[in-house]
C-alpha cells in the first residue's frame, strides 16, 4: 500500500473542507505517514472469506410507527445558527462568482 504524501494530504484536506497552511500540510503529512504505516498490517490480517462487521451488535429492521414525533420549531432550529434570515439558515454565495 502506498504511503501518504503531502499532495495526498492537500487533496484530502480540500475534500474535507479544512484549509491548511503549507506548514500544517508538511507537519500533517509526516504525522499521518507514521500512523498509516502503523495501521497497514490490518489489510493483511483477514482473508477473503472473513465477513465484515459494521455494527457490533446487529439489530435488523428497526421500525417505528409512521407518526409525526417531536420536531423543532424554526426558532429552536435556528437558535445556534451563525446567521439566519426569515426562518432560514443564511449562507454566503453557494456558487463561485466566475
Amino acid at each position, binding site marked *: 500500500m502506498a504511503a501518504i504524501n503531502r499532495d495526498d494530504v492537500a487533496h484530502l484536506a480540500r475534500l474535507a473542507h479544512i*484549509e491548511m497552511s503549507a506548514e500544517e500540510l508538511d507537519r500533517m503529512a509526516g504525522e*499521518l505517514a507514521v500512523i498509516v504505516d502503523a*495501521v497497514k498490517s490490518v489489510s493483511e490480517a483477514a482473508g477473503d472469506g*472473513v465477513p465484515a462487521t459494521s455494527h*457490533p*451488535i446487529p439489530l435488523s429492521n428497526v421500525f417505528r410507527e409512521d407518526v409525526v414525533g417531536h420536531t423543532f420549531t424554526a426558532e429552536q432550529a435556528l437558535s*445556534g445558527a451563525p446567521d439566519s434570515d426569515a426562518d432560514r439558515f443564511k449562507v*454566503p454565495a453557494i456558487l*463561485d462568482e466566475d
Partner: protein
Amino acid sequence: MTETNSTELIRLSAAQLAAKLAAREVTAVEVTQAHLDRIAAVDGGERGVNAFLHVNTEEALAVAAEVDAIRAAGGQAAEELHELAGVPIAVKDLIVTIGQPTTAGSKILEGWHSPYDATVVKKLRAAKMPILGKTNLDEFAMGSSTEHSAFGPTRNPWDLDRIPGGSGGGSAAAVAAFEAPLALGTDTGGSIRQPGAVTGTVGVKPTYGGVSRYGAIAMASSLDQIGPVSRTVLDSALLQQVIGGHDPHDSTSLPDPLGDLVAAARLGNVDGMKIGIIKELHGEGYQAGVENRFNESLELLKEAGAEIVEVSCPNFQYALGAYYLIMPSEASSNLAKFDGVRYGLRVLPEEPPLTIERVMGATRAAGFGDEVKRRIILGTYALSAGYYDAYYGSAQKVRTLIQHDFDAAFEKADVLISPTAPTTAFKLGEKLDDPLAMYLNDVATIPANMAGVPGLSLPGGLADEDGLPVGIQLLAPAREDARLYRVGAVLESLLEAKWGGPLLDKAPELASPVVEHVETFETQEAK
C-alpha cells in the same frame, strides 16, 4: 438537622448519600452546595483540577431544593422519589443539555446551546439528580489525556502535573477530586475506562446499545457508548440502572433491559466463576507496577473462590490498527456537520471570493484542533476510492475476527480480566507531539468497543515505582453487564480490605486556590 459537615459529605459515595437523604439526615441542598463549594475550592486557578467547563450552580440548587420540598411534604410524591434523587452528578461536555452550553471541548461549538436534552440527561432530570455542570474532555472525545481540549487540560488529582486520562479526564478527575460523587462519560476506545484507571476511580462502558446515545455528539457511531463514572462499583451500577434501557430515538439501542445491575453489585460472590486472563493484554509493554497490581488482583480473586484460566485472543494485535481506521472513518463523516452553517462558529476567509465552500474551509481550519484534523484527514483517506477495501474494508473484517476471539474466550471464562491501561498517568505534555504513542494508551480498552462487549475499570492499587493508581479491567459478553458488577464489587471489597479503606483515601489533599485567593483579597480590601 445535620451532624455531617460538608468535607465529610463530599467523601461519601452516591449510595451513602442516597441513604442519608432518604433518612433525612442531610438535605439535597446541603449535599449539592457541598460539592459546588468543593468545585469552587479546587477546580479553578492556575493549579486547579480544571475538570469543569461549566458549573450549573443555579439549576443544580433548584433541583436539590425541589427534592427537599418533596421529601419534607411527604406522602406519595416523596415515596415515589427515585433512590438517587438529590444526589448530584457531573456530565461530560460531549452530551447535550438544555440550559447549559455544550462545547465538546471544541472552539467550533464554543457558546452553543443545544435545543434538546440527551436521553440520558432526560433520565437524570426524571430522577431529580442535580446536574453540577459539564466536564472537560479531549476535543470531540479524541484523545487519551484531555490535553486536546480547546479549553486547557484537566489535571490529575493524584499529581497535578500529570494527565487524568482521556477523553473523559474531566469526569474522572471531578469524581476523584470529590467534586462530584458521580459523572457521565462516553467511551469510544476507552474514554471512560482509561481515565478511571489513571485517577483511581470506577468507570464502565456498558454493552453497545445498553444506554441510549441520543444526544451524545457522535465521534464513531458504531463504537461510542455512554456510561457511568463513580468512586465505587455499586455507584456505577446505580447510575447505569438510571441511564440504561431502550430509547426509540436511538435505533441501535437494545430492545431488552440488561437485568438488575444493582443486585449483581450487591451479590458479593465469585465462588466457582471462571475468570480468564487475556494472554495478549498483559506482560510485554505493560509497566512493572501495573503488572504487579494485576497479579495481586488475580490472587485475591483466586482466594475468593474464582477459577483463573488463561485465554488467547490472537487477533487483538490488529485491534489498535483497525480501530484507527474505523474510528477516523466514522468521525470524518460525523464531523462533516460542523460547517459553519447551522450552529457554532463561522469564520470568513481573509480574501475573496466569499463562497460557502471557502467559509467552510476557513471555519473548520479555525474551529478544529490538530488531533481532530488528523483524524478527519485519516478517515477521509481510509474511505477514499481505491483505498476503501484495503483500509476500512479490512478493518471491518478484523472486527469480525476480534468478535470471534471474544466468543472463543467466553467459552472458557465467564469474565475476562486485564490491566485497563499499560501505564500509570504520564506527565502533561509528555506524549502530545507523538500521536502514535498516545494511541497506545488504549491498547487494552479498544477490543471491547470493537466487539460491543461491556467493560469495567476499577482501582487496583498504586504502582510501586511511582505511587500512581493502576486500573483493573473486567470484560463480559454482550448484554452480561451484570457479571462485571458482580465480580467488580467482590474485587473492590477484597482490595479495600487489604488497603484498609478506599484507594482515594491515599490521594494527596488538594490545595484550595480559589478560596485562599478570595480570603487574601478580602483581607487586603479590609486593610
